[in-house]
């Protein structure tokens, strides 16, 4: 009984001892916070990686050529592990170069080009939700949207990074940029021509009286025709909102040109409206196209005998269409989705700036599947940007339609028409079964030809590095608590010396050695409990309010403490694991008690006669 009473009294009266356990408190609190944040990070990261990579992927060892007939493979996979499989999607991975222009300069980036099946990709992994157009997130398509791309990072809600550049993105950007470019080019041409004329002394004869340039262009059939009306001013074009009725481009067309345009659009009857921007102002044009196509169907049938042309409705490559001139104002190339990291950066105000926007054209160069591979180049139109917030992926991935990629790379057998893919992405129903599915597939498919891995296998190094970091941090922080233990040891020795007389008194009253030792051990334990308890509460409160604290610190210091541009997340992810906390608290208590063992032993062995000798 006296042990308890004295121990409590000592706790209440010795403030210096309380000071010695502040380091225990801090150590425990820090460990809890660090562990919570680290495990939150790990979890979020796993989620992201899992979202980007499929649970299991079956990859060809021959990365360039892949394997034929993905449908047969998928049937086989379903036969082997059908019960566990939720969905599958064939994919073509190929290293490539991305080319685009910034201020007239060509920029080249190495990328991972991924051919995906727009329909099944989103089922096998999280793809659509990383896109920037709300419609694309709902139902992805490789067709360029008119506009309406997110002006803020949609994952950040109201605090998402500002992306005002996206306001222009889409068809509108495409038209206006092209128009400005043409205008610029035409004017430059005119100026150059004028210079030439002047130097030849004939300038006055050919310049139109208005002073606007005359442009000579090639018509579809190769006959030159003149575009007589001057284009509207370039500066106006870029800034002004364009009312549908008076779209300057459409109104600038001559009737002959309009006819040509309608005819061209009607050539791909199914395609005609699909490639007109999804915008009410084009309704009239759409109607005209369908009328025209109905009218001209009979007479123009001969032109459609090219098999490639009908095979793929998206196929608008000018080289394939006879009598078809690609007009970037109204048509897009094959769509592609480019990683956010490839096309954007953040300026010093924290706003995201774009090097290219949806609506711009880019050039992709990649090896063909032939032997030896040769380089193939094709134009694509950016239809959306991909942002998984894993910078490794965002600065590497470019997605294009798989059929197009297969065609461009020659990944099909000419006779049978069977296509080749480089991998099949598999989503399993139960995440925990991914390993089992992998092993089953490994047993069934020859390992010399197929590389079958789970997402964990692919990112094992990263995850291992993070858990290693966590462990090292834990060791270091635990050493802090151990240092606190030495503080307790020193202070306890002091207290024992100070309490020498009391120990003698207790012994003279019949207290046993064990009892005296018990006082100091339980004193150590109580201090440990107080320290660890305060640390526990403090740490949990810190974790709970971690985002508010980060914000407060940002406000106080004027410096972003947790910058979403550097980290992957808008909110600091923190996850409290009860088991970890139990270990931390138990460890802190153990240290506090073991630090009090030696002083307690000393107290127990104290000779009461010595202790009582002097007042």
């Amino acid at each position, binding site marked *: 009984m*006296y042990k308890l009473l004295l121990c409590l009294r000592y706790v209440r009266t010795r403030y210096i001892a309380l000071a010695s356990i502040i380091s225990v408190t801090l150590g425990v609190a820090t460990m809890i916070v660090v562990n919570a944040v680290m495990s939150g990070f790990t979890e979020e990261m796993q989620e992201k990686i899992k979202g980007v990579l499929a649970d299991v992927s079956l990859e060809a060892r021959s990365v360039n050529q892949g394997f034929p007939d993905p449908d047969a493979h998928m049937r086989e996979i379903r036969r082997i592990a059908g019960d566990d499989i939720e969905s599958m999607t064939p994919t073509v991975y190929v290293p490539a170069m991305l080319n685009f222009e910034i201020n007239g300069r060509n920029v080249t980036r190495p990328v991972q080009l991924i051919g995906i099946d727009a329909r099944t990709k989103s089922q096998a992994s999280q793809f659509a939700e990383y896109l920037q157009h709300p419609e694309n997130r709902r139902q992805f398509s490789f067709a360029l949207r008119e506009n309406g791309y997110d002006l803020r990072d949609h994952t950040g809600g109201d605090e998402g990074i500002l992306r005002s550049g996206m306001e222009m993105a889409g068809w509108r950007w495409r038209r206006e940029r092209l128009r400005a470019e043409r205008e610029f080019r035409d004017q430059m041409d005119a100026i150059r021509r004028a210079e030439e004329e002047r130097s030849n002394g004939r300038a006055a004869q050919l310049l139109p009286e208005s002073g606007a340039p005359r442009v000579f262009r090639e018509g579809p059939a190769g006959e030159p025709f003149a575009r007589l009306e001057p284009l509207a001013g370039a500066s106006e074009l870029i800034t002004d909102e364009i009312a549908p009725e008076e779209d300057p481009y459409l109104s600038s067309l001559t009737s002959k040109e309009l006819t040509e345009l309608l005819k061209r659009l009607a050539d791909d009857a199914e395609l005609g409206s699909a490639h007109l921007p999804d915008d009410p102002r084009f309704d009239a044009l759409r109607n005209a196209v369908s009328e025209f196509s109905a009218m001209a169907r009979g007479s123009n049938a001969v032109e459609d005998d090219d098999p490639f042309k009908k095979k793929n409705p998206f196929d608008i490559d000018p080289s394939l269409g006879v009598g078809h001139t690609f007009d970037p104002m109204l048509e897009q190339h094959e769509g592609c989705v480019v990683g956010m990291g490839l096309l954007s950066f953040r300026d010093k105000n924290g706003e995201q700036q774009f090097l290219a926007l949806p609506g711009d054209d880019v050039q992709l160069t990649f090896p063909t599947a032939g032997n030896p591979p040769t380089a193939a180049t094709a134009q694509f139109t950016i239809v959306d940007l991909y942002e998984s917030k894993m910078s490794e992926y965002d600065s590497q991935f470019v997605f294009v339609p798989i059929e197009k990629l297969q065609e461009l790379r020659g990944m099909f057998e000419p006779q049978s028409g069977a296509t080749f893919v480089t991998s099949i992405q598999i989503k399993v129903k139960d995440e925990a079964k991914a390993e089992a599915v992998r092993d089953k597939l490994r047993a069934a498919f020859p390992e010399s030809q197929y590389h079958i891995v789970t997402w964990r296998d692919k990112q094992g190094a990263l995850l291992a590095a993070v858990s290693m970091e966590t462990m090292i941090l834990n060791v270091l922080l635990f050493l802090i608590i151990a240092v606190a233990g030495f503080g307790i040891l020193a202070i306890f020795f002091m207290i024992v010396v100070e309490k020498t007389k009391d120990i003698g008194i207790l*012994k003279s009253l019949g207290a046993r050695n064990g009892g005296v030792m018990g006082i100091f051990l339980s004193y150590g334990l109580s201090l440990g409990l107080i320290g660890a308890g305060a640390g526990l509460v403090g740490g949990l409160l810190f974790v709970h309010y971690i985002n508010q604290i980060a914000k407060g610190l940002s406000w106080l210091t004027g410096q972003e403490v947790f910058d979403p541009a550097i980290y992957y997340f808008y909110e600091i992810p923190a996850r409290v694991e009860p088991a970890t906390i139990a270990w931390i608290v138990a460890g802190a208590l153990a240290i506090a008690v073991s630090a009090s063992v030696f002083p307690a032993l000393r107290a127990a062995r104290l000779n009461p006669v010595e202790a*009582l000798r002097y007042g």
Partner: protein
Amino acid sequence: MAKEKTLGPTRTAPSTNGHSGGPHVAPSRTQCALESFGLKKSYRRGKIEIPVLRGVNLQVRRSEFLAVVGQSGSGKSTLLHVLGTLDQPDGGEVWFAGRRVDNQPARRRDALRNRDLGMIFQFYHLLPELSTLENVLAPVMIAYGVFTYYLRRGEHVARAKKLLDMVGLSHRLKHKPRELSGGEMQRAAIARALVNRPQVLLADEPTGNLDGETGAEIMDLLVSLKAQEKLTIIMVTHDQAIAARADRVVRLVDGKLRAA
């Protein structure tokens, strides 16, 4: 009581190797509260051994008030500590109520100090963190565990309050020792020494730190306690006047007891 049984070197002291038997049969064994035979104790100062007790034979009867006088450094306190089993003798024996106690294991000696002996000191030795009442209850708390203590807590507290009332401190229950005067502290120490109803009270210079008047009050208290509670008291002091209040006075000279 008459000073009939003076102890001295003339009496047969047991040899230091005589652990086995009890040849030193005293006629008044059953009447003796505390006895010692041939107690020897020396201290080491470096390599030099300084003998303090050189064969102390002592017999204290029940309900006897014995005073041991001696000069400072004569070994009075050492004698008291050895008698109170706080210290182990180098030779000789200590008997309590007809039983030898100096060779008992530590637990038995601890229990003896707790229940059968009460001690008071020159410097009072109250625990500074505890209130007067808690100080008085300390031996009870040492005797009982948490649960068994609380089971009969009311009884213990009543006993402590009664004792404090007896020593005249009932108005100081909640005070900490530093808020009490010297006399009050010694009264509290006396109450503490008596709380477990011991047979023997060992007092080490109980008035050493008090002025004459207060010292006399404490002596009055001891004398009346002896009478009321039939308490055996062994008091060591250097003060002849104080010692004169005892039933019997012996003198410790050169490590041996002589009749005063």
